[in-house]
């Protein structure tokens, strides 16, 4: 558990430094709709809500709305 937290913290730090500078005029590819972290938010929310109902794990992506999902 402790190892997991430490690894994640290190990951966070690395992710902020291990990259090259990209001027704004070169960021066109990053702005493409298929490059959005969540290209289809509604579909993503429905999938995460489904997984919450059928699997014990949750989190990471943020919340999935309310409700039981008991069945």
């Amino acid at each position, binding site marked *: 558990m402790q190892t997991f937290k430490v690894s994640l913290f290190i990951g966070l730090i690395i992710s902020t430094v291990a*990259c090259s500078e990209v001027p704004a005029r070169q960021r066109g590819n990053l702005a493409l709709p298929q490059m959005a972290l969540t290209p289809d*938010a509604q579909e993503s929310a429905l999938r995460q809500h489904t997984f919450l109902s059928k*699997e014990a*794990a*949750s*989190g*990471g992506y943020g919340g999935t*709305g309310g409700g*039981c999902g008991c069945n």
Partner: protein
Amino acid sequence: MSKRKNTKLINRLTCAALALPGLMHEASAARVEETYDVDVQYGHYEESGQRIKVNTFESAFTIPIGNAMTSMFNFVHDAVSGASPIYNSRDAQGKVTQVMSGASIKEERNMIDANIAYFLDQSTLKAGGGYSTEHDYKSKYLNASWSQDFNKKHTTLNLSGSVAFDDIEPTNFNSDCGNKCTKTTEQVLAGVTQVLNKDALLQTNLTFSNSSGYLSDPYKRVIFYDANNVLTTIASDKRPRDRRQWAGLVRYVQHVEDANRAALHADYRFTTDNWGINSHTVDLSWHQPLGEGWEIVPRIRYYTQGKADFYEPTFTGTPTNTPNYSSDYRLAGFGVVSGGLKLTKTLSSSKPLQYLKLNAGIEYFDHKSRYELGGNDSGSFADFKYYLFTASVNLKF
């Protein structure tokens, strides 16, 4: 490039770089909406056999307020029907069988949530809340998030928190809390979104969630046998009254110029909790533009979890000598392998309708105990399959 185009590019870039997950809904990730958006989705979920089917309808409306704010309203209606597992029994030879409820479940859920977002030059503040109601379950929740750009907008720090208050009113009396039970969940998220280079993004999130109160399932039962394999007690599902779960998520997005500007999305998530459940999830998708506004998205996912400390298919002993016990298949060790395909068509036009996007996708899931990472020899009694079909329309005015 003109100044106007430059501004537009930076706005769109900010959208990509800031795309943080809000705790409630990811629909309006940090961006200034200058259009009125209407997003409507239909979903159909169906399990194999005579098990659960869900039809879900969702409509979301995003409305700009001045130049720096947007509000979003979201409505969801679910209609659930079918049979659900209640408990497991075992015969004299030790073979376990899952016992279903019969196709008697009929349930409806309605949910409304809303949020308001305020955009500053290098940061975004968002606050929202929602209410979900079923005849035996009500949930109220609030959330807030803050994202801050720095490092010339290469890096975005995302912080958010939410709290949910749930009231459970089981239609059958439950020995834990009668027919009026409550639970509270708090969740916090800290994350960083990083532009790695002109073709790649990385997001790292850590969430911690704390739930307390009635965390059992009032409709699940547990069978206790004595040492001679004689059934002695049918008890209600009983779980600890607190749960603390950590989740770490890494999301990587890579642009592939040579494949007609396709994008690879690769997610990995690890979770662990104080119930003894560890899980791993790998989710990969390939977003392939086909030209003329068409796009195809194949997807594969693998999920695996270990069992909870207090899970057994059936129990030997007595409830009084067992602090917590559950035979809920969702707390067992298992794995899920899935694959899906989605097709989208984007149409751009002039005012008043500036943008129209049509989406249709299907994803097929195979849930098996033997797919658990490291193996699982508990048998196939809880295995099942399901699929999720979605169709949606996105409009911008």
